[in-house]
Protein backbone atom coordinates (compact mmCIF):
# COMPACT_ATOMS: atom_id res chain seq x y z
CA UNK A 1 0.00 0.00 0.00
CA UNK A 2 2.93 2.28 0.66
CA UNK A 3 3.79 1.94 -3.01
CA UNK A 4 0.30 3.14 -3.80
CA UNK A 5 0.81 6.32 -1.79
CA UNK A 6 4.14 6.82 -3.47
CA UNK A 7 2.52 6.45 -6.87
CA UNK A 8 -0.18 8.87 -5.86
CA UNK A 9 2.43 11.43 -4.85
CA UNK A 10 4.12 10.96 -8.22
CA UNK A 11 1.11 12.71 -9.67
CA UNK A 12 1.65 15.87 -7.61
CA UNK A 13 1.67 18.89 -9.89
CA UNK A 14 2.87 21.61 -7.55
CA UNK A 15 6.35 22.91 -6.86
CA UNK A 16 8.76 21.31 -4.41
CA UNK A 17 9.77 24.65 -2.95
CA UNK A 18 9.15 24.58 0.78
CA UNK A 19 6.79 27.34 1.82
CA UNK A 20 6.27 29.04 5.17
CA UNK A 21 3.54 27.27 7.05
CA UNK A 22 0.34 29.16 6.41
CA UNK A 23 -1.46 30.21 9.56
CA UNK A 24 -4.85 29.80 7.95
CA UNK A 25 -8.05 31.54 8.86
CA UNK A 26 -10.58 30.57 11.42
CA UNK A 27 -14.09 31.88 11.64
CA UNK A 28 -15.29 33.16 14.98
CA UNK A 29 -18.65 31.59 14.40
CA UNK A 30 -18.25 29.02 17.10
CA UNK A 31 -17.59 31.42 19.89
CA UNK A 32 -19.60 30.34 22.90
CA UNK A 33 -20.67 27.14 21.22
CA UNK A 34 -19.94 23.80 22.74
CA UNK A 35 -18.16 22.66 19.65
CA UNK A 36 -14.59 23.58 20.25
CA UNK A 37 -13.21 24.26 23.66
CA UNK A 38 -9.48 23.82 23.80
CA UNK A 39 -6.85 24.79 26.19
CA UNK A 40 -4.75 26.85 23.82
CA UNK A 41 -1.74 26.15 25.99
CA UNK A 42 -2.83 29.01 28.19
CA UNK A 43 -3.86 27.11 31.23
CA UNK A 44 -7.54 27.81 31.20
CA UNK A 45 -8.40 24.57 29.39
CA UNK A 46 -11.53 26.29 28.29
CA UNK A 47 -11.90 28.82 25.54
CA UNK A 48 -15.34 29.95 26.51
CA UNK A 49 -13.99 32.93 28.31
CA UNK A 50 -11.71 34.16 25.58
CA UNK A 51 -11.63 32.12 22.36
CA UNK A 52 -9.26 34.61 20.84
CA UNK A 53 -6.08 32.76 21.62
CA UNK A 54 -4.43 36.14 21.30
CA UNK A 55 -4.20 35.53 17.59
CA UNK A 56 -7.62 36.20 16.16
CA UNK A 57 -8.14 32.72 14.86
CA UNK A 58 -10.73 31.95 17.47
CA UNK A 59 -10.46 28.26 16.80
CA UNK A 60 -7.81 25.80 17.75
CA UNK A 61 -9.20 22.89 15.83
CA UNK A 62 -6.19 21.61 14.03
CA UNK A 63 -3.13 23.25 15.31
CA UNK A 64 -3.18 24.19 18.98
CA UNK A 65 -0.25 26.45 18.31
CA UNK A 66 -2.44 29.52 18.16
CA UNK A 67 -1.05 30.26 14.74
CA UNK A 68 2.13 31.57 16.20
CA UNK A 69 5.55 30.21 16.70
CA UNK A 70 5.52 30.24 20.46
CA UNK A 71 3.01 27.45 20.96
CA UNK A 72 2.22 29.30 24.13
CA UNK A 73 -0.32 32.03 24.53
CA UNK A 74 1.48 33.67 27.39
CA UNK A 75 3.44 35.86 25.04
CA UNK A 76 5.34 36.10 21.77
CA UNK A 77 2.15 36.62 19.83
CA UNK A 78 1.90 37.67 16.22
CA UNK A 79 -1.44 39.31 16.78
CA UNK A 80 -4.69 38.96 14.92
CA UNK A 81 -5.00 37.16 11.66
CA UNK A 82 -4.15 39.57 8.92
CA UNK A 83 -6.53 38.66 6.17
Amino acid at each position, binding site marked *: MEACLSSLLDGY*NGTTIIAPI*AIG*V*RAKLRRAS*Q*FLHYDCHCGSDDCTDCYNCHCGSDDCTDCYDCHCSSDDCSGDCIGPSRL
Partner: protein
Amino acid sequence: MDFTTAWLTTNRTCNNRCQWCYALSTLNRNSSMPLDKAISLVDALYERNVKRIVLIGGEPTIYSHFIELISYIRSKGMRVSVATNGRRFSDLAFTKAVLNAGINGIDISIKGLSEEEYFINTSSYGLKEMLQGYQNLISLGFTPSVSYVFVNDDSENLDNLINFINSNSISLFSFQFVKPVLGSSSNENSFDLKDMGKFVGEIYKRMSKTSIKYCIEISFPLCLIDQTILEKLSEENRIINCCHVPRGSGINFDENFKIIPCNHFADYPFSDRPVDPFTPSSIEEIMKSDIVTRFRHLARSYPSLKCQSCNLWDQCGGGCFTRWLSLDPNDYIL
Protein backbone atom coordinates in the same frame (compact mmCIF):
# COMPACT_ATOMS: atom_id res chain seq x y z
CA MET B 1 7.01 15.30 16.15
CA ASP B 2 4.36 16.95 18.25
CA PHE B 3 0.82 16.01 17.40
CA THR B 4 -1.93 17.93 19.07
CA THR B 5 -4.90 16.35 17.37
CA ALA B 6 -5.49 12.74 16.39
CA TRP B 7 -8.17 11.36 14.12
CA LEU B 8 -9.26 7.84 14.92
CA THR B 9 -11.14 5.92 12.29
CA THR B 10 -13.10 3.75 14.65
CA ASN B 11 -14.89 1.82 11.95
CA ARG B 12 -15.17 1.50 8.22
CA THR B 13 -18.84 0.75 8.40
CA CYS B 14 -21.57 3.20 7.61
CA ASN B 15 -25.33 3.41 7.36
CA ASN B 16 -24.97 5.69 4.32
CA ARG B 17 -23.16 5.37 1.01
CA CYS B 18 -22.51 8.97 0.09
CA GLN B 19 -21.43 9.37 -3.50
CA TRP B 20 -18.70 11.84 -2.62
CA CYS B 21 -17.37 9.97 0.44
CA TYR B 22 -13.59 9.96 0.62
CA ALA B 23 -13.72 6.58 2.33
CA LEU B 24 -16.25 4.95 0.02
CA SER B 25 -13.78 2.43 -1.35
CA THR B 26 -12.93 1.27 2.17
CA LEU B 27 -16.44 0.67 3.48
CA ASN B 28 -16.49 -2.84 2.08
CA ARG B 29 -13.87 -3.77 4.68
CA ASN B 30 -16.62 -3.85 7.28
CA SER B 31 -13.95 -3.56 9.93
CA SER B 32 -13.53 -1.64 13.18
CA MET B 33 -11.07 -1.02 15.99
CA PRO B 34 -11.13 -3.58 18.80
CA LEU B 35 -11.84 -1.63 21.98
CA ASP B 36 -8.76 -2.79 23.88
CA LYS B 37 -6.50 -1.67 21.07
CA ALA B 38 -8.37 1.61 20.66
CA ILE B 39 -7.90 2.32 24.37
CA SER B 40 -4.22 1.50 24.16
CA LEU B 41 -3.88 3.86 21.25
CA VAL B 42 -5.59 6.61 23.26
CA ASP B 43 -3.09 5.93 26.05
CA ALA B 44 -0.22 6.21 23.60
CA LEU B 45 -1.59 9.49 22.25
CA TYR B 46 -2.12 10.81 25.74
CA GLU B 47 1.50 10.08 26.54
CA ARG B 48 2.42 12.08 23.44
CA ASN B 49 0.47 15.04 24.79
CA VAL B 50 -2.29 14.87 22.19
CA LYS B 51 -5.04 17.23 23.32
CA ARG B 52 -7.91 16.30 21.13
CA ILE B 53 -9.26 13.23 19.40
CA VAL B 54 -11.72 13.28 16.52
CA LEU B 55 -13.68 10.13 15.85
CA ILE B 56 -14.31 9.51 12.20
CA GLY B 57 -15.42 6.63 10.03
CA GLY B 58 -17.34 5.29 8.27
CA GLU B 59 -19.99 6.43 10.65
CA PRO B 60 -18.50 6.55 14.17
CA THR B 61 -21.84 6.51 15.96
CA ILE B 62 -22.51 2.95 14.81
CA TYR B 63 -19.15 1.79 16.18
CA SER B 64 -20.10 -0.75 18.81
CA HIS B 65 -17.81 0.80 21.43
CA PHE B 66 -18.57 4.45 20.60
CA ILE B 67 -19.74 5.49 24.05
CA GLU B 68 -17.09 3.52 25.95
CA LEU B 69 -14.36 5.07 23.85
CA ILE B 70 -15.67 8.60 24.41
CA SER B 71 -15.81 7.97 28.14
CA TYR B 72 -12.27 6.68 28.16
CA ILE B 73 -10.89 9.61 26.18
CA ARG B 74 -12.61 12.05 28.49
CA SER B 75 -11.31 10.19 31.53
CA LYS B 76 -7.82 11.03 30.28
CA GLY B 77 -8.73 14.71 30.13
CA MET B 78 -8.58 14.83 26.35
CA ARG B 79 -11.18 16.50 24.17
CA VAL B 80 -13.22 14.34 21.85
CA SER B 81 -15.49 15.22 18.97
CA VAL B 82 -17.17 13.32 16.19
CA ALA B 83 -17.96 13.83 12.53
CA THR B 84 -21.30 12.15 11.92
CA ASN B 85 -24.35 11.95 9.70
CA GLY B 86 -26.35 12.40 12.90
CA ARG B 87 -28.82 9.60 12.28
CA ARG B 88 -28.14 7.66 15.46
CA PHE B 89 -28.89 10.69 17.57
CA SER B 90 -32.53 10.14 16.65
CA ASP B 91 -32.38 7.62 19.49
CA LEU B 92 -32.86 9.83 22.55
CA ALA B 93 -31.43 7.30 25.00
CA PHE B 94 -28.32 6.93 22.84
CA THR B 95 -27.99 10.71 22.62
CA LYS B 96 -28.21 11.07 26.39
CA ALA B 97 -25.56 8.39 26.83
CA VAL B 98 -23.19 10.12 24.41
CA LEU B 99 -23.61 13.45 26.16
CA ASN B 100 -23.21 11.83 29.55
CA ALA B 101 -19.98 10.28 28.31
CA GLY B 102 -18.73 13.84 27.95
CA ILE B 103 -18.39 14.41 24.22
CA ASN B 104 -17.12 17.90 23.43
CA GLY B 105 -18.08 18.41 19.82
CA ILE B 106 -20.49 17.01 17.27
CA ASP B 107 -20.53 18.00 13.62
CA ILE B 108 -23.49 16.72 11.66
CA SER B 109 -23.24 16.54 7.91
CA ILE B 110 -26.43 17.03 5.89
CA LYS B 111 -26.61 14.64 2.97
CA GLY B 112 -29.76 15.91 1.32
CA LEU B 113 -32.58 18.38 1.78
CA SER B 114 -35.41 15.95 1.15
CA GLU B 115 -35.71 12.22 1.73
CA GLU B 116 -35.58 11.66 -2.01
CA GLU B 117 -32.42 13.70 -2.40
CA TYR B 118 -30.93 12.04 0.68
CA PHE B 119 -31.59 8.64 -0.88
CA ILE B 120 -30.11 9.63 -4.22
CA ASN B 121 -26.96 10.85 -2.50
CA THR B 122 -26.57 8.11 0.09
CA SER B 123 -28.72 5.12 -0.87
CA SER B 124 -30.47 5.60 2.47
CA TYR B 125 -33.52 7.42 3.72
CA GLY B 126 -31.88 9.18 6.62
CA LEU B 127 -33.05 12.78 6.63
CA LYS B 128 -35.84 12.32 9.15
CA GLU B 129 -33.46 10.56 11.53
CA MET B 130 -30.83 13.24 11.10
CA LEU B 131 -33.28 16.03 11.86
CA GLN B 132 -34.65 14.15 14.87
CA GLY B 133 -31.07 13.65 16.02
CA TYR B 134 -30.38 17.35 15.74
CA GLN B 135 -33.51 18.20 17.70
CA ASN B 136 -32.65 15.62 20.37
CA LEU B 137 -29.25 17.20 20.88
CA ILE B 138 -30.75 20.69 21.06
CA SER B 139 -33.40 19.53 23.51
CA LEU B 140 -30.65 18.20 25.76
CA GLY B 141 -28.82 21.51 25.66
CA PHE B 142 -26.08 20.58 23.20
CA THR B 143 -25.65 22.62 20.02
CA PRO B 144 -23.95 20.65 17.28
CA SER B 145 -22.47 22.31 14.24
CA VAL B 146 -24.06 21.33 10.96
CA SER B 147 -22.36 21.22 7.59
CA TYR B 148 -23.25 20.70 3.95
CA VAL B 149 -20.88 19.73 1.16
CA PHE B 150 -21.45 21.24 -2.26
CA VAL B 151 -20.57 18.63 -4.83
CA ASN B 152 -21.46 20.72 -7.86
CA ASP B 153 -22.29 24.24 -8.94
CA ASP B 154 -25.86 24.07 -7.79
CA SER B 155 -26.88 27.66 -7.13
CA GLU B 156 -30.57 26.76 -7.41
CA ASN B 157 -30.22 24.40 -4.52
CA LEU B 158 -28.59 27.11 -2.44
CA ASP B 159 -31.92 28.79 -1.79
CA ASN B 160 -33.39 25.46 -0.79
CA LEU B 161 -30.51 24.91 1.59
CA ILE B 162 -30.98 28.33 3.16
CA ASN B 163 -34.66 27.62 3.63
CA PHE B 164 -33.75 24.27 5.15
CA ILE B 165 -31.37 25.88 7.64
CA ASN B 166 -34.00 28.44 8.59
CA SER B 167 -36.91 26.05 8.86
CA ASN B 168 -34.96 23.69 11.10
CA SER B 169 -33.54 26.49 13.26
CA ILE B 170 -29.96 25.35 12.71
CA SER B 171 -27.81 27.80 14.58
CA LEU B 172 -24.24 26.90 13.59
CA PHE B 173 -23.75 26.15 9.94
CA SER B 174 -20.77 25.61 7.68
CA PHE B 175 -20.69 25.39 3.91
CA GLN B 176 -18.07 23.08 2.49
CA PHE B 177 -16.86 22.10 -0.95
CA VAL B 178 -16.23 18.62 -2.22
CA LYS B 179 -12.63 17.44 -2.28
CA PRO B 180 -11.16 14.81 -4.58
CA VAL B 181 -11.85 11.18 -3.77
CA LEU B 182 -8.35 9.85 -4.22
CA GLY B 183 -7.99 6.93 -6.55
CA SER B 184 -11.36 7.54 -8.14
CA SER B 185 -11.70 9.07 -11.57
CA SER B 186 -15.47 9.24 -11.56
CA ASN B 187 -16.09 12.27 -9.41
CA GLU B 188 -12.85 14.20 -9.28
CA ASN B 189 -13.29 17.83 -10.11
CA SER B 190 -16.96 17.60 -10.92
CA PHE B 191 -17.05 21.05 -9.36
CA ASP B 192 -14.42 23.20 -11.00
CA LEU B 193 -12.28 25.19 -8.57
CA LYS B 194 -12.91 28.44 -10.41
CA ASP B 195 -16.62 27.85 -10.11
CA MET B 196 -16.17 27.17 -6.41
CA GLY B 197 -14.63 30.62 -6.08
CA LYS B 198 -17.59 32.21 -7.83
CA PHE B 199 -20.00 30.14 -5.79
CA VAL B 200 -18.58 31.61 -2.59
CA GLY B 201 -19.79 34.97 -3.87
CA GLU B 202 -23.26 33.52 -4.38
CA ILE B 203 -23.27 32.16 -0.85
CA TYR B 204 -22.23 35.51 0.55
CA LYS B 205 -24.81 37.41 -1.49
CA ARG B 206 -27.69 35.20 -0.43
CA MET B 207 -26.65 34.66 3.16
CA SER B 208 -26.29 38.40 3.65
CA LYS B 209 -30.05 38.57 3.44
CA THR B 210 -30.44 36.19 6.36
CA SER B 211 -29.52 36.25 10.03
CA ILE B 212 -28.07 32.74 9.99
CA LYS B 213 -24.71 32.26 11.68
CA TYR B 214 -22.53 30.57 9.13
CA CYS B 215 -19.03 30.03 7.95
CA ILE B 216 -17.50 28.75 4.73
CA GLU B 217 -14.73 26.19 4.70
CA ILE B 218 -12.45 27.17 1.87
CA SER B 219 -10.38 24.25 0.61
CA PHE B 220 -9.12 25.89 -2.56
CA PRO B 221 -6.89 28.91 -3.20
CA LEU B 222 -8.33 32.13 -1.83
CA CYS B 223 -7.33 33.97 -5.00
CA LEU B 224 -10.23 32.25 -6.76
CA ILE B 225 -12.65 34.28 -4.66
CA ASP B 226 -13.52 37.82 -5.67
CA GLN B 227 -11.31 40.05 -3.55
CA THR B 228 -14.15 42.27 -2.36
CA ILE B 229 -16.18 39.25 -1.32
CA LEU B 230 -13.15 37.77 0.38
CA GLU B 231 -12.57 40.93 2.38
CA LYS B 232 -16.20 41.06 3.46
CA LEU B 233 -16.21 37.42 4.48
CA SER B 234 -13.03 37.95 6.40
CA GLU B 235 -14.36 41.03 8.18
CA GLU B 236 -17.36 39.00 9.24
CA ASN B 237 -15.20 36.05 10.29
CA ARG B 238 -16.95 33.70 7.93
CA ILE B 239 -13.96 31.84 6.57
CA ILE B 240 -12.39 28.65 7.75
CA ASN B 241 -9.34 27.25 6.08
CA CYS B 242 -6.90 25.57 8.34
CA CYS B 243 -5.35 22.20 7.63
CA HIS B 244 -3.12 20.19 9.89
CA VAL B 245 -1.27 18.53 7.03
CA PRO B 246 1.27 21.26 6.21
CA ARG B 247 1.91 21.85 9.90
CA GLY B 248 2.22 18.20 10.72
CA SER B 249 0.25 18.83 13.89
CA GLY B 250 -2.23 16.02 13.38
CA ILE B 251 -2.06 12.27 13.01
CA ASN B 252 -4.68 9.99 11.47
CA PHE B 253 -5.24 6.32 12.07
CA ASP B 254 -7.40 4.02 10.03
CA GLU B 255 -9.42 1.27 11.66
CA ASN B 256 -6.57 -1.18 11.20
CA PHE B 257 -4.20 1.15 13.08
CA LYS B 258 -2.34 2.16 9.97
CA ILE B 259 -1.30 5.79 9.83
CA ILE B 260 -2.78 7.72 6.92
CA PRO B 261 -1.72 11.22 5.83
CA CYS B 262 -5.21 12.61 6.40
CA ASN B 263 -8.80 11.42 6.22
CA HIS B 264 -8.86 11.86 2.48
CA PHE B 265 -6.09 9.31 2.04
CA ALA B 266 -8.36 6.63 3.44
CA ASP B 267 -6.92 3.89 1.26
CA TYR B 268 -3.35 5.19 1.17
CA PRO B 269 -1.56 4.52 4.44
CA PHE B 270 2.04 5.54 4.93
CA SER B 271 2.85 1.91 5.51
CA ASP B 272 1.20 -1.46 5.19
CA ARG B 273 2.50 -2.07 8.68
CA PRO B 274 -0.04 -1.04 11.32
CA VAL B 275 0.92 0.69 14.51
CA ASP B 276 1.03 -1.61 17.49
CA PRO B 277 -0.98 0.41 20.01
CA PHE B 278 0.66 -1.52 22.81
CA THR B 279 4.07 -0.38 21.55
CA PRO B 280 3.87 3.39 21.17
CA SER B 281 7.33 3.58 19.64
CA SER B 282 5.88 1.99 16.54
CA ILE B 283 4.26 5.36 15.78
CA GLU B 284 7.69 6.96 15.70
CA GLU B 285 9.09 4.27 13.45
CA ILE B 286 6.51 4.91 10.79
CA MET B 287 6.57 8.69 11.09
CA LYS B 288 10.33 8.67 10.50
CA SER B 289 10.02 6.75 7.24
CA ASP B 290 10.99 8.16 3.88
CA ILE B 291 7.45 8.20 2.55
CA VAL B 292 6.32 10.42 5.42
CA THR B 293 9.22 12.77 4.80
CA ARG B 294 8.37 12.92 1.12
CA PHE B 295 4.70 13.52 1.78
CA ARG B 296 5.41 16.29 4.24
CA HIS B 297 7.84 17.96 1.89
CA LEU B 298 5.27 18.09 -0.90
CA ALA B 299 2.45 19.11 1.43
CA ARG B 300 4.56 21.99 2.67
CA SER B 301 5.53 23.23 -0.78
CA TYR B 302 4.05 26.07 -2.78
CA PRO B 303 1.53 24.69 -5.27
CA SER B 304 2.51 27.36 -7.76
CA LEU B 305 5.44 29.74 -8.08
CA LYS B 306 2.85 32.52 -8.08
CA CYS B 307 2.14 31.70 -4.45
CA GLN B 308 5.63 32.76 -3.45
CA SER B 309 4.83 36.42 -3.88
CA CYS B 310 1.18 36.31 -2.87
CA ASN B 311 0.26 38.35 0.18
CA LEU B 312 -2.54 35.91 0.98
CA TRP B 313 -0.21 32.97 1.44
CA ASP B 314 -0.22 33.07 5.24
CA GLN B 315 -3.96 32.69 5.27
CA CYS B 316 -4.39 30.61 2.15
CA GLY B 317 -1.77 27.90 2.10
CA GLY B 318 -2.71 27.00 -1.45
CA GLY B 319 -5.84 25.02 -0.71
CA CYS B 320 -6.24 21.34 -0.01
CA PHE B 321 -3.12 19.44 -1.02
CA THR B 322 -5.16 16.62 -2.52
CA ARG B 323 -6.37 18.88 -5.31
CA TRP B 324 -2.88 19.17 -6.78
CA LEU B 325 -2.53 15.41 -7.12
CA SER B 326 -4.79 15.58 -10.15
CA LEU B 327 -4.89 19.25 -11.12
CA ASP B 328 -2.16 21.61 -12.25
CA PRO B 329 -2.10 24.55 -9.84
CA ASN B 330 -0.93 26.84 -12.61
CA ASP B 331 -4.26 26.37 -14.34
CA TYR B 332 -6.05 27.83 -11.34
CA ILE B 333 -3.89 29.98 -9.13
CA LEU B 334 -3.94 33.61 -10.21
